[in-house]
């Protein structure tokens, strides 16, 4: 697809090429990963330093808090992109694992007084255990049915949380969860929480980078393109899917634990279907099949929703329209092939007659 698009470009007008050349300075193309041999490039360093410096050059607690939320969403989306983008399966139950993580942390820290550092890891393990139990029967399904089954799991989880008031506090939820602290250092301001969450996210990105380049990651890509083909190559398809699902759930568990300690509450309304849909939307809009895309999608959607808050009751219809338009005009994600898309849009009217030939 990309090669084809590139070939098209060579035949195009000079004007568009110049525009493309300018744009290439502005917007790095994540798809370039596939064409060059991978090494720890300047871009990664740039992203990392941007994350480190960002809150210092912009000391605004609201933005810090927004980026904390975006980071939590980013962890969730990163977990899902392994499952959705690399293994090609769809899950609408990610919010349930998020909830498992949040409630594990909430219960362990408030009831049993465990240090939040231990609860943090326990949340990931708990979410992974849930995913293992659930995944074995569910992952037999694919496509719409898998989406629906995971959605059903999410709803059942919510009902269980609401009905087991002795463990989870029922509809009221759990309050006063202590802030994350490690070795006597408490993350109590948004700035500290920002570094905590983006630090965790950086670690998880490194982990995922290694994962997708490992044997398992390559097996995932094979499964995504054809399950029959993958199993013919001797890949244990069911195991690969379950493994990726579990890793994604563990990521969601970590995100849930961080969310509980940042917001200091856990209640069932937070882990509803809306969140699952939001996460899938982040992955889809950010671009499936690369690791930076979902994080970009998470930041973009979190900021978008916050911006739209000012339009009060018009915010939700506006949000719906923006989402649909983005899906129609950027079906591969806002980051992926952004240059190609922009050029396509710019040249839309100029090429009206030739449009049939361009297969974008």
């Amino acid at each position: 697809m990309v090669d084809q698009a590139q070939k098209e470009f060579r035949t195009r007008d000079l004007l568009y090429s110049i525009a493309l050349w300018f744009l290439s300075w502005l917007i790095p193309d994540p798809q370039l990963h596939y064409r060059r041999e991978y090494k720890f490039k300047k871009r990664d360093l740039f992203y990392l330093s941007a994350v480190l410096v960002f809150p210092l050059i912009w000391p605004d607690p609201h933005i810090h808090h927004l980026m904390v939320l975006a980071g939590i969403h980013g962890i969730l989306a990163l977990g899902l992109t392994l499952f959705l983008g690399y293994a090609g399966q769809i899950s609408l139950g990610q919010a349930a694992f998020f909830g498992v993580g949040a409630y594990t942390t909430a219960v362990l820290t408030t009831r049993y007084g465990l240090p939040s550092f231990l609860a943090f890891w326990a949340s990931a393990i708990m979410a992974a255990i849930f995913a293992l139990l659930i995944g074995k029967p569910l992952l037999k399904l694919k496509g719409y049915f898998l989406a629906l089954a995971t959605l059903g799991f999410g709803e059942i989880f919510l009902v269980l949380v609401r009905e087991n008031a002795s463990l989870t506090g029922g509809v009221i939820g759990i309050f006063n969860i202590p802030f994350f602290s490690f070795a006597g250092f408490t993350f109590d301001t948004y700035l500290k929480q920002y570094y905590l969450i983006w630090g965790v996210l950086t670690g998880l990105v490194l982990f995922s980078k290694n994962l997708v380049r490992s044997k398992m990651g390559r097996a995932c890509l094979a499964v995504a393109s054809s399950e029959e083909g993958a199993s013919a190559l001797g890949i244990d398809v069911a195991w690969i899917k379950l493994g990726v699902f579990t890793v994604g759930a563990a990521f969601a568990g970590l995100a849930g634990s961080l969310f509980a300690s940042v917001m200091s509450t856990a209640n069932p309304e937070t882990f509803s279907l809306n969140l699952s849909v939001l996460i899938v939307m982040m992955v889809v809009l950010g671009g499936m099949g690369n690791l930076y895309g979902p994080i970009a999608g998470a930041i973009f959607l979190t900021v978008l929703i916050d911006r739209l808050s000012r339009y009060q009751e018009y915010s939700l219809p506006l949000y719906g329209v923006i989402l649909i338009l983005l899906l129609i005009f950027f079906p591969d994600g806002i980051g992926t092939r952004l240059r190609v898309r922009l050029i396509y849009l710019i040249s839309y009217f100029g090429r009206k007659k030739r449009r049939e030939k361009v297969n974008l």
Partner: protein
Amino acid sequence: MEAFISSTLFFLTNDPDEETIQLKTMELFAPLPQLFTSGITFGAIYALVGLGFVTIAKASQMINFAQGEFVMLGGMLTFFLFKEIQLPYLLSAFLTIPLVMLIGCLLHLLVIYPLRKASLPILLMATLGASLFLSSASALLFGTLPKALPPFINRPPIDIGPISISLQSLWVVGATCLVLLFLYLLSHRTLLGKAMEASSTDPLGADLSGISRHLMIFIAFGVSAGMGSLAGIFITPIFYVSYHSGTLIGLKGFIAAILGGWGKHSGAILGGFVLGVVESLSVAFMPSGYKDAIAFVVLLLILYLKPKGILGSPFIDSRRW
């Protein structure tokens, strides 16, 4: 699955309520007939909504998650025409159906058609986005207060022994039968219906025999929107309609369609009644808080044990399912 069920049972037995009312076995079974009749009403609704899903699936093998919003729009627009513009009840109901059909067609033109080549997650997200837009836009236009319509015929409920049946429930069941008849005639007796089915079962073959697939999907969206609005018109007098009531009804209707056999009209009807009755009867045996989970437990069980559904499914083997 076993592990999951056992964990569910573990949760169920751990009920923390100290102050539970102990019912004896006799009393446990006393409300069953009443629950059964209320389940039948719900079943008819689920069946009507499920039929809408099946109509689209029969033409394009995709799922429209905005289907529930058509139900909501049916009730909302009827209320709007009846109470705000003050048209006669019957006229406003009849005007609503083409209006919602128009919205369904627009949904196809503006969202589904531009995404005809997109992959599954994108289609899924697009229909969910459309559902979000429709519900929030109707909240903006008609307000978020719940709205109720008067019953078609204002008479007290009929009492048969221990059961009381409201007349409106009979209307709903009747409407389901009518819609089923209409769909049966459409898909078995007309060329249009056959063309719609052909475009789903064998897209290439349909193209070769000169059927415009996109036109068929377009028509299917219109028809299913019309059926959704019909469901909305019939159920609003029993319950009420509010801007967010579409989502849950849509999901349950979809579960009903899968339960009976995905892609079959008769399957949607059977699945609807089974789901409605099971859900209603479950209240007799467990705390009502679990009522919403029942439908999803049924869904997981049927997907795991018999994904073809009760009556079997014509296109379960295709790559999308």
